[in-house]
């Protein structure tokens, strides 16, 4: 950055002085009067900078709280512009007489010579000197920053914007700069780096500065960087150079300096004697400085050396500050940065962190940004909060809460399961296959949660009052779920209906209520987490669903960065190129219309496929229904305990065979887009599976529950257990045997088939099917989530192994995330809502079995709640629960009104969405129009430029010079694309480029 700016200086035609020392001296000579020169050095000789940097007292004084107070005074800028007042006001709080003295000294020579001029000259110095103090102080003292309206570090000036202003005339800006920010250094630079300072321009600009008490002006900021190019180092370097020559002067000085790091500065400028010697001494100095600046292509180094201490002293971690990448600060103090900071301050801490995090900046910049915002914030809040103890208290509570939440989320993240395995899968098979495993993991978490809840609220209390199990354990129970398991905590029938109370004095635990509330709570949590994750997915993936394009652009820009495996990358690249080719040919042939005949054939194929698939599904359902109807008689006739496995076996067979049959339809149907094919397949499969489950539920609730004499809830629980287990066994066998066989066939026998691809849709549907069963079964068999947990765990590894052995990565780009959304939607809509309906019917309509389970003896399950409310009615302290129940939960009117309100809100939102759609369309059109405008204007500009060039060649040369200025920057930016991050704004400033 430094280097870059520096060179810009050198090449900058606007800065003839820089090009050579000779030039520079000439300028001096030409400049209005020798006094100018004398003044300039005086600026340099300003004691403050040296002091501030070196003397600890000074810093200390700056750090004093009072001090900022006077600084924050709005007049402050004004005071800076008047050296006198500044001289008096400022040093006072410092209580350092030397300062005052030193201040005056430079002033006097100025006044004696050319009053106005010197004033102007010194102005920058003064503020500079003051600024130097402030500058160091500013880090300690946030108030100061405020008062300036520009919190920032000197570095800030180095902005990307700098480039912009450079193109324009920088001089005025430069002069203003010192006053703006980081004045200390700037003062130096001005005087040192710009000997032509005294030029007329400077004067004209000063008034500007005066008129601008705030530093907020964007231009000022932008200009500043120029100076920044060589801010400190000349000073630092010069210190050495001068030291010897100035020594005598120093001796003459009345001022007592504690430090003499850069004594030369003071002496020259301060003492009246300095004026005498000025002409001799200063010229060479300034020249020397220049040469130093130019000779050193990376002045950053010396500059840092110089700047660093101050920074480091102020803020611990500081290295970032002194480093060349000061650009970060520049950005912060740029108008955009300021705006950002202002907006950040008003946010809550959480939003702020989020906002900072989302900034496309480097870490350092973000860190600085946060630090600054915190500083501003704390300073602001200090004023308010100091009085307000209550707010402070709240603040600390919120802080503690945040910390706790952070820790909790860290803890949760640390349990992230299978991180490595998922990484490997993603690396080899890409995101689409990964989504299946993610879904599996998500379901696993769900089940773990359900298990924890049921275990702690139902199972543990039951275990404490467990009776002895007299049934024999044979081992077949693992398959059938009956026998020994019937009398365990696994099934509904085993639970007691009594109130558990271990000592007479201890708290009692009503099992009935615990059972119904735990299951209910579990379902409610599942409901909301499903809803929220579904909403999140929808928000992310269907932001703008109505503008789908065929999207070759998406193919190109959506390279899967998760894929890391070498062969996978190669395969993916190959697949991508074929896909792009297909896409291109499709685009080329887009206009080719199918003949009526072809269309008819295609249409009839679809119809036939749908008819056949629905027919198959209906047949399957009918088969399951009759089998189930006859199942009870069949069981009565067969004493073999394995007979109960017939129904689950048939169901699992259907689930295994029919989806494969469905997927064969694609040979007939020939969908144009793979997405359509996947959706059709999904719809058919989900229709099949859900209707089978529906038939089974009907059978359970209608036949088993009404006819059975025994504990029918336990029977249903066993059925579900068997279904689940059979399904698990089948998919295990399918993974280990079926897929393996398929590989053997594909590789050895029919090589044209090749390796198969992982069928995500079918596998996900299997998961959904199993999860549906688990949700239904949780009521009848509270341990079911635990069983599902184990099966999912095993499935993960089995699928993983099978995937690695038998499959190849998918050849088509797959809309994985939209599919994921769709899966979760399926899990929610037919599956979870179906479960809710089933359970609602069970609880409100069915009579619990008379001699088992927690609800024995009641006429409905829900009656337990009614009784509880009645008992609560007797205890006056719980009347509010009763009130809530009667007026909200139990009241039809409440629900009626609620539904009405929800419907109204939904309708309103729908209308808003419609409106937004129109708005989006309009905005899109506007973008297109603006683009056209831009092109038109650019054309016109080019034409005008051409004409101007012909008419006025000198103007053109000027213009070219401007462009040349740009040239080196560009080159440099290629060398140093760190700037790249800022280029956007850079471009905005200069559309010409």
């Amino acid at each position, binding site marked *: 950055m430094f280097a870059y700016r520096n060179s810009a200086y050198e090449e900058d035609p606007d800065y003839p002085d820089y090009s050579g020392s000779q030039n520079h001296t000439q300028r001096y000579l030409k400049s209005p009067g020798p006094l100018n020169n004398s003044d300039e050095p005086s600026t340099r000789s300003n004691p403050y900078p040296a002091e501030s940097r070196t003397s600890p007292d000074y810093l200390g004084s700056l750090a004093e709280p009072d001090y900022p107070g006077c600084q924050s005074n709005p007049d402050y800028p004004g005071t800076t512009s008047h050296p006198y007042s500044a001289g008096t006001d400022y040093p006072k709080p410092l209580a350092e007489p030397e300062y005052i003295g030193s201040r005056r000294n430079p002033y006097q020579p100025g006044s004696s010579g050319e009053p106005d001029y010197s004033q102007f000259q010194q102005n920058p110095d003064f503020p500079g000197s003051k600024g130097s103090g402030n500058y160091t102080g500013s880090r300690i003292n946030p108030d100061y920053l405020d008062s300036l309206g520009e919190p920032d570090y000197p570095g800030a000036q180095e902005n990307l914007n700098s480039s912009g202003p450079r193109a324009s005339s920088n001089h005025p800006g430069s002069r203003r700069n010192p006053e703006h920010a980081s004045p200390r250094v700037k003062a130096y630079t001005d005087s040192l780096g710009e000997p032509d300072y005294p030029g007329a321009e400077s004067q004209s600009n000063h008034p500007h500065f005066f008129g601008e008490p705030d530093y907020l002006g964007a231009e000022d900021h932008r200009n500043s960087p120029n100076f920044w190019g060589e801010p400190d180092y000349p000073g630092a370097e010069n210190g050495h150079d001068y030291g010897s020559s100035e020594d005598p002067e120093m001796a003459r000085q009345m001022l007592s300096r504690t430090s003499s790091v850069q004594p030369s500065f003071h002496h020259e400028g301060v003492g009246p004697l300095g004026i005498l010697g000025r002409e001799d001494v200063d010229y060479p100095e300034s020249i020397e400085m220049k040469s130093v600046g130019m000779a050193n292509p990376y002045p950053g180094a010396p500059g840092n050396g110089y700047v660093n201490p101050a920074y480091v002293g102020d803020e611990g971690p500081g290295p970032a500050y002194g480093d060349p990448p000061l650009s970060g600060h520049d950005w912060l103090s740029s108008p955009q940065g300021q705006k950002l900071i202002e907006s950040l301050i008003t946010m809550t801490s959480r939003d702020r962190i989020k906002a900072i995090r989302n900034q496309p900046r480097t*870490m350092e910049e973000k860190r600085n940004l946060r630090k600054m915002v915190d500083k501003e914030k704390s300073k602001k809040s200090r004023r308010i909060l100091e009085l307000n103890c209550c707010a402070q208290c709240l603040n600390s509570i919120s802080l503690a809460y945040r910390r706790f939440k952070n820790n909790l989320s860290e803890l949760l993240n640390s349990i992230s399961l299978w991180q490595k395995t998922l990484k490997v899968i993603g690396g080899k098979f890409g*995101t689409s296959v990964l989504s299946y495993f993610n879904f599996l993991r998500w379901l696993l978490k769900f089940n773990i949660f359900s298990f924890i809840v049921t275990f702690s609220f139902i199972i543990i209390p039951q275990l404490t009052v467990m009776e002895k199990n007299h049934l024999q354990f044979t081992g077949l129970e693992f398959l059938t779920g009956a026998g020994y398991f019937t009398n365990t905590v696994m099934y509904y029938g085993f639970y007691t209906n009594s109130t558990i109370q271990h000592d007479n004095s201890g708290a009692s635990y009503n099992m009935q209520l615990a059972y119904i509330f735990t299951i209910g709570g579990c379902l409610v949590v599942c409901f909301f987490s499903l809803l929220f994750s579904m909403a999140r997915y929808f928000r992310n993936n269907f932001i703008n669903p109505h503008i789908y394009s065929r999207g070759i652009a998406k193919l190109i820009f959506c390279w899967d960065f998760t894929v890391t495996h070498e062969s996978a990358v190669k395969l993916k690249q190959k697949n991508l190129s074929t896909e792009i080719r297909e896409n291109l040919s499709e685009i080329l042939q887009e206009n080719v219309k199918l003949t009526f005949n072809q269309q008819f054939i295609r249409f009839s194929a679809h119809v036939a496929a749908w008819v056949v698939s629905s027919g198959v599904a209906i047949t399957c359902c009918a088969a399951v229904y009759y089998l189930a109807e006859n199942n009870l008689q069949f069981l009565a006739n067969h004493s073999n305990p394995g007979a109960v496995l017939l129904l689950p076996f048939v169901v699992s067979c259907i689930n295994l065979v029919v989806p494969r049959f469905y997927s064969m339809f694609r040979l007939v149907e020939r969908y144009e887009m793979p997405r359509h094919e996947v959706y059709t397949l999904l719809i058919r499969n989900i229709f099949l599976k859900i209707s089978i489950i529906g038939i089974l539920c009907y059978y359970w609730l209608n036949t088993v529950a009404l006819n059975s004499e025994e504990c029918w809830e336990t029977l249903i629980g066993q059925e579900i257990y068997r279904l689940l287990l059979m399904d698990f066994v089948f998919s295990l066998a399918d993974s280990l045997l079926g897929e393996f066989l398929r590989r053997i066939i594909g590789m050895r026998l029919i090589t044209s088939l090749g390796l198969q691809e992982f069928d995500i849709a079918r596998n996900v549907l299997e998961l959904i099917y199993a999860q549906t069963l688990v949700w239904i079964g949780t009521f009848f068999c509270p341990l079911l989530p635990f069983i599902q947990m184990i099966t999912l765990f095993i499935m993960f590894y089995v699928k993983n192994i099978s995937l690695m052995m038998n499959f190849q990565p998918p050849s088509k780009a797959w809309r994985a995330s939209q599919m994921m959304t769709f899966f979760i939607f399926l899990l929610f809509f037919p599956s979870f809502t179906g479960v809710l309906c089933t359970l609602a019917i069970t609880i409100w309509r069915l009579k619990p079995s008379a001699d088992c389970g927690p609800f024995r003896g009641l006429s409905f399950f829900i009656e337990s709640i009614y009784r509880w409310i009645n008992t609560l009615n007797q205890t006056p302290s719980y009347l509010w629960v009763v009130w809530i129940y009667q007026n909200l939960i139990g009241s039809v009117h409440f629900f009626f009104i609620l539904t009405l309100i929800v419907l109204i809100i939904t309708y309103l939102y729908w209308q808003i969405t419609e409106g937004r759609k129109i708005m989006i369309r309009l905005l899109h059109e506007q973008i297109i129009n603006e683009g056209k405008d831009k*092109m038109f204007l650019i054309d016109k500009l080019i034409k005008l430029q051409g004409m101007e060039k012909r008419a006025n060649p000198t103007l053109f040369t000027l213009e070219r010079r401007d462009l040349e200025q740009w040239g080196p920057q560009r080159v440099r930016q290629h060398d140093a694309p760190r700037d790249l991050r800022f280029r956007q704004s850079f471009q905005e400033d200069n559309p010409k480029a």
Partner: protein
Amino acid sequence: MSLLYHMTSPSVLSRILARSISLRQSALFSKNKDCTFFTRKEIMRLFYRYQDLAPQLVPLDYTSCPDVKVPYELIGSMPELKDNPFRQRIAQVFSEDGDGHMTLDNFLDMFSVMSEMAPRDLKAYYAFKIYDFNNDDYICAWDLEQTVTKLTRGELSTEEVSLICEKVLDEADGDHDGRLSLEDFQNMILRAPDFLSTFHIRI
């Protein structure tokens, strides 16, 4: 401590040292926490990954904030990036000077942006930078050609590549200036829901 470190073989002792330092370190890194999408633990893990890239270059003790850069050759050889066709661009975009040499901050930055938690706009911004090969803040036809060549390993013919570029510009160039600006790119990314999950490097 550094003396001790230099004296012994890195593997065993470094781990022990790492433990001892980790407390201080984690306090140090925790200030990075709010600037990235990582937890403290993940930052530590990333730090060790970084340290492992160049054990002799990167000190284990980062409390003094040494100014260390790991050269691109080592960054590019990470298994996460090794086979990525855009690895060089990624390293360039996130490195400070655009040369691919990365400091720890750059390194954290990179993985933070590529993490799961980073929002779409942030990802899109950096993706744009990555695809903008000539750093001119626009994705022009030349950039697109580069991208396509990298993506397809040069399997497509020149005509096909230029046809693709034409189509892409056709599709995504909102203001019809013949190149994609950041806004165009973001707009297009909005329509590609998979982007969020594919612009992601697991660590």
